């Protein structure tokens, strides 16, 4: 459980830097910071995504719902996994779909988010919270942000 707590907190700590250029366009002071310290901000964003992936990886080897409920406190897990999956899907949504060089990265993020989705599915049999988390994650999965080069504002499909 310490591992999940650690990766979750580190994800949250770095989440303000996730897709900053997209979500904070109207915020001039932040955009100025982004221009001045772009490498630093990029590296903090990478940490956020990496930690969300680490959270998902911890659940790779969970065999079934029974071992999940028995071995993990599910009431803490749902919010940790919802945070991880939303970070992964937002990061994936911000990747321009026509960038062939980022295709593998996009698929990896998708697979890790899918791991979280499977856990929600397994827990949703007995948990309304898990069911809602699953539906939110599925909704977010359908979200795409059009390339910045076409429109300078994010929107969802």
């Amino acid at each position: 459980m310490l591992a999940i707590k650690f990766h979750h907190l580190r994800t949250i700590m770095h989440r303000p830097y996730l897709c900053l250029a997209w979500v904070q366009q109207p915020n001039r002071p932040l955009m100025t910071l982004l221009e001045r310290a772009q490498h630093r901000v990029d590296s903090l964003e990478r940490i956020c995504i990496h930690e969300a992936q680490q959270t998902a990886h911890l659940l790779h080897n969970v065999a079934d719902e029974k071992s999940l409920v028995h071995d993990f406190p599910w009431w803490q897990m749902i919010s940790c996994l919802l945070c991880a999956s939303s970070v992964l899907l937002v990061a994936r949504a911000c990747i321009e779909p026509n960038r062939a060089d980022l295709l593998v990265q996009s698929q990896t993020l998708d697979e890790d988010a899918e791991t979280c989705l499977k856990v929600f599915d397994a827990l949703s049999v007995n948990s309304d919270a898990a069911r809602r988390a699953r539906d939110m994650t599925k909704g977010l999965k359908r979200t795409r942000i059009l390339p910045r080069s076409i429109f300078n504002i994010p929107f969802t499909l």
Partner: protein
Amino acid sequence: MEQETIRRTWYSLYVLDRLLALQLGRPIAIHEDEYYVNLPSELEGNSGLFNGEPNQLSSIDYFISVINFSKILGQVISGLYRPSQVAIEPEKMLLSTTTLDEKLMNWKLSLPRHLRFDLGHTFEKSTIFKRQVRLSVQPLKILAKHI
């Protein structure tokens, strides 16, 4: 024994306060400068949760690690997730993130070996996981026994 029970009760509430603040997005209720309570310690006659095992793993190690983690968690909530009306200078935010991240990394590095989840003993990993889940409820169980 009674003092130890009170300490454990206090720090159980402290950990829950931080956990709920994180999960519900609410401000923390217990502020560091408003209390002084010694950290819990091992109860006499209960020196090892897994008595008979070679490493004599202790539930109190886990509880103290979670308390220290919760302190950093409180600082993250207060420092990086203030209400949106209170603007944070971007430069300060960058510095706060770096400082808090260093604290969290130091917390991980200072964990007792049997709680270090990042060490390469893969065979032990799942066992450690399961033990940690059980250990996470142990202080309250011990507490309940003595109330």
